[in-house]
């Protein structure tokens, strides 16, 4: 333990030494800027930075990329709140209640809550990461295909939570999302499915054009078609009713939910290949089914912002666990972090943890610093962000549409991504117009591949006698959680509709 503490102090000294401190600060600012643009995320920034940082020493690399990871998550939630456009799939949970708050003129409250929850959640995740460093390997090896499968199922079960108005619609949309996830190569046999003879669909549909279309483009079409003067329907900032103070205090007012959501984010983030989407939606689902006082989830309940944001940022610390222990990525951001590390000769694993622990802590502190810097800066400009909701539609829509077009083309340099964005944009608009939920499509699309891959692996391993599902306690706990997630809303609905019960 002494070695860990000494390395933590050494790592902190490395981060704050001049000019090292410039790297996390500049990295954070770049990540915030990139993540605010629709369809462009911290992951895009990391991909661009890898070739540009060739030949750098290891320390600046870990400081910069740690900051990229930390700076990206929060800004994706700002676009979710303001424009109903998630910065990435994990931010889709935030828009469920964040955007309704913005439409009510409470964008400032939602953004402030997101900033505070992000900072506290990320701190929790990092503290757990440090505490678990000695036990990393054994912890990660307890999760195998059955656990991954059940985590995907648990994440999919939150479709019920986000489809409170109509489960049937939600499940239908989730079905569409799953079908979209199956386009491309079969994970077992490598046979092509639904590619229609094109190279474009060989590796399946990509989340960025789908998100850009379903949300960014659809929202702008809807905003124009609705004739609304602005996103909030208000004409000047004085009519906005949000409160930074109220938003900042929300994590303390709901500290139990804050803590539980952080735990969910850290644990789920630590599981390789799962990512923030499961963490955010599972936390949201937990917030819904654990609420007892006047829930307005889906209509602008601040807890619906707090829970996914806490989980989404707590997962950053958790997702470093498999990266550091085995060099296995825990999220999309850590895939590129790993690429950057190995490219610069930094090989994750036991040797890194044993011989370069100070460098590991430099990465952790850069992530921590970046999370807090992002939240503080986000709080400072939350008022300015909120003003975007009163910008007139005739000015705002062309700007957003231009950014969407640029993002779709720049994403992979394939113009056909723009066609896909347009198609999903029209689809998303009509879904919104006829009150069909879009978020279940995203949940199922993101989790569909994880579900299918681990279903096949679990069945194969079970058939070969390599696993015994009944002897895996984590899997059994996940089954219970999933059943609970599915049953609780049904039970509540029946209780509310029981004759004589209060409405």
């Amino acid at each position: 333990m002494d070695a860990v503490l000494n390395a933590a102090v050494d790592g902190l000294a490395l981060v704050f030494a001049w000019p090292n401190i410039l790297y996390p600060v500049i990295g954070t600012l770049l990540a915030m800027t990139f993540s605010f643009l629709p369809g462009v995320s911290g992951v895009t920034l990391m991909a661009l930075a890898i070739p540009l940082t060739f030949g750098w020493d290891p320390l600046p690399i870990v400081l910069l990329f740690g900051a990229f990871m930390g700076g990206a998550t929060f800004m994706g939630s700002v676009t979710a709140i303001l424009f109903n456009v998630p910065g990435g799939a994990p931010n889709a949970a935030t828009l469920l209640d964040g955007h309704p708050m913005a439409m009510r003129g409470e964008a400032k409250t939602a953004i402030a809550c997101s900033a505070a929850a992000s900072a506290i959640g990320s701190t929790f995740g990092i503290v757990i990461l440090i505490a678990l460093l000695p036990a990393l390997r054994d912890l990660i090896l307890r999760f195998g295909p059955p656990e991954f499968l059940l985590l995907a199922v648990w994440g999919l079960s939150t479709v019920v939570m986000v489809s409170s108005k109509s489960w049937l619609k939600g499940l239908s949309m989730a079905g569409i999302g799953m079908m979209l996830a199956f386009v491309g190569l079969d994970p077992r046999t490598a046979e092509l499915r639904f590619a229609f003879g094109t190279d474009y669909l060989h590796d399946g549909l990509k989340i960025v054009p789908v998100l850009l279309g379903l949300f960014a483009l659809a929202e702008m079409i809807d905003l124009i078609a609705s004739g609304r003067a602005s996103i909030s329907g208000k004409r000047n900032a004085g009519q906005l009713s949000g409160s930074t103070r109220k938003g900042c205090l929300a994590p303390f007012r709901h500290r139990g939910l804050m803590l539980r959501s952080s735990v969910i984010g850290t644990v789920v983030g630590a599981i390789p290949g799962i990512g923030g989407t499961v963490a955010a939606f599972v936390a949201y689902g937990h917030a819904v089914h654990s609420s007892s006082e006047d829930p307005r989830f889906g209509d602008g309940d601040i807890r619906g912002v707090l829970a996914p944001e806490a989980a989404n940022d707590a997962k950053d610390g958790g997702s470093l666990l498999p990266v550091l222990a085995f060099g296995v990525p825990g999220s999309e951001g850590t895939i590129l972090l790993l690429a950057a590390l190995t490219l610069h000769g930094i090989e994750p694993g036991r040797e890194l943890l044993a011989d370069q622990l100070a460098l590991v802590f430099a990465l952790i502190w850069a992530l921590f610093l970046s999370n807090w810097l992002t939240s503080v800066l986000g709080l400072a400009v939350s008022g300015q962000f909120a003003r975007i909701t009163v910008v007139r539609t005739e000015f705002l829509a062309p700007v957003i549409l231009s950014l969407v077009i640029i993002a779709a083309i720049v994403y992979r340099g394939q113009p056909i991504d723009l066609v896909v964005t347009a198609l999903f944009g029209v689809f998303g608009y009509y879904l919104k117009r006829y009150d069909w939920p879009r978020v279940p499509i995203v949940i199922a699309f993101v989790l569909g591949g994880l579900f299918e891959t681990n279903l096949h692996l679990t069945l194969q391993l079970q058939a070969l006698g390599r696993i015994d599902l009944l002897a895996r306690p984590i899997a059994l706990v996940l089954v219970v959680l999933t059943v609970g997630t599915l049953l609780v809303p049904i039970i509540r609905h029946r209780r509310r509709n029981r004759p004589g019960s209060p409405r």
Partner: protein
Amino acid sequence: MAISMVWRRGRTLLFMAVAVAALAVSGGARAAEDPCDALAGETIRWIVPFGPGGYDAYSRILAPFLATRLDAEIVVVNMPGAGGVVGAKHLHKARPDGRTLGLLHGSSLLVAELFGNADSPRLPADFTLLGRLTRDSDIWIVADASRFQTVDDLYAKDGEGPVVVGVSSTASKHWLSAIIIGDLLGFEADLVSGYKGAKASLLGLLRGDFEMMGTVASTAIPRIEAGEVRPLLKIGQSTAGRHARFDDVPRLEGLDGLAVRRARALGRDPELARSRASALAGTIAAGRIIAAPPGMDPGLAACLEGRLFETMTDTTLNAAMVKAGRPLDIASGTKAAALIRQAKRDAASIAPIIRERIDKAKK
């Protein structure tokens, strides 16, 4: 007298001027005959058929060195998709004017051809091969606590059921290897497919999902040094994958390789075993091939091949590659093409085994 001297000296000067001019013109003409000069000042697109990772790293380290030798600008362009096929197809269709080059995943193209994928370009016919940057050796590993202490244990375990092997997918390089190794060494293998990438497979091995897996040497080495896994056998002779821990590990191919010795022990045809092992090794070790579109002017191709070889033997480049953990195992384009053709000839001996297993997997 003075006038004649001036005339003689003037004539001499005139002759000298004409001679100098003639030399200048002929020297310029000789310089223009160097085909690579046509690329001076031009921008060359270097196609990498994958995202950030090994191929991208090799390309970005190499690019400035080659750019200096060609006096051109080299822009690395990532074109990921379909396991490298998207980038390969783009390179295949480009104009063969030297302004589009690329780094191909040789073994994946050969494996695609073996599995009858009509959509994938063919090596070497569909490209102009300019060189090989490096090649892989495959190491087959087990967990340190495995019941298999040596490769002999794989086929000395009568009645204990098949060996469970983890692979990424059916029709992948390691799926092919697992089938051929099992056939050559005479043990039955049950394959578990669906692991996404070498690292995910490695975790599966450590968890105990399966008993054995194949991976490239560079992925195996850190885990071997950490004492988590143990190498059982190796395939391929890449110098890039050489490591002291592999010195005592038996090799599959070769005249005295594991395949031949096992064939003799089982009373099978050793020459057929040698050929099959060689086909597998040649396929795996096809390497990272630097190529241009087909139909390139032979002079330009020869010039590029030469400049590339000079670049790859540059000691500063080699030092940079080693520092980045990307050692080289180079070959000229001509030699790389010859090795690939040999591997394809040998592959005829393994085609029946592959067809049988694919049909079985589809049922």
